[in-house]
């Protein structure tokens, strides 16, 4: 139980740092430590994600890093797709879809890392001082 609390805190740090909900840590903590089934762990992680996302978004708004309208549009368009995903996961074995999703994530990771390493090596020195020249745009 202490481990679950610590993993919860770590998930929150990752959520704030990387803009995720923390599900990648909540789900294994709920499934492997607290003994929930995989589907229940995924469902319950959503309950933890909501307050984390709210507080994180509020902080990023204060830091000036939020495009509220874009975020709402992404989230609203996600709802019907999320409903479809829930129906699917309750109807089919998830092993294959999980493996395919894992491969997609590795590919995206490679794409992100390649660009970041190029910038760190001096490809775009404007980015090195931490001043995101392309970040602040009028909403």
């Amino acid at each position, binding site marked *: 139980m202490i481990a679950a609390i610590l993993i*919860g805190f770590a998930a929150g740090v990752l959520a704030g740092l990387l803009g995720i909900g923390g599900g990648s840590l909540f789900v294994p903590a709920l499934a492997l430590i607290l003994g929930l089934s995989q589907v229940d762990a995924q469902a319950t992680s959503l309950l933890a994600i909501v307050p984390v996302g709210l507080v994180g978004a509020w902080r990023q708004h204060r830091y000036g890093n939020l495009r509220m309208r874009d975020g709402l549009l*992404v989230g609203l368009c996600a709802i019907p797709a999320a409903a479809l995903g829930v129906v699917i996961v309750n109807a089919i074995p998830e092993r294959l879809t999980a493996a395919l999703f894992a491969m997609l*994530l590795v590919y995206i990771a490679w794409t992100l890392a390649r660009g970041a390493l190029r910038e760190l090596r001096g490809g775009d020195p404007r980015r090195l001082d931490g001043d995101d020249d392309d970040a602040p745009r009028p909403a």
Partner: protein
Amino acid sequence: MPRSRPVQLGAIGVAAGLFSGLFGVGGGVVVVPLLILWLDYGEREATGTSLVAIVVTAGFACALQALYGNVHVGDGLLVGIPAVGGVLAGTAWQQRLAGPAIRLLFALLLVVTAALLVVRP
């Protein structure tokens, strides 16, 4: 942003929602890299904006999962309450990091997430 890109934003939302419903993640692992790679967001903006989308998506998916009887409230609070403390620390920490460093950390997160998806029981 020189022009609004509602179609791309909507497509990102659809992809994120599908994975949210399927795998219980809020969709941030999809939203953040696509905002950066496709819509040229800065790293901090992408992560902040992603959290807004996640609240909407996860809130809805959570309600639907509750109808299936899959949500364990006590266990959710046990990990969720310490996570709220964590997110305060994480957002503060992020403001001190350079953009490419955030992106590298995100790439690492994606690889770990992929590994967890494959090896889980």
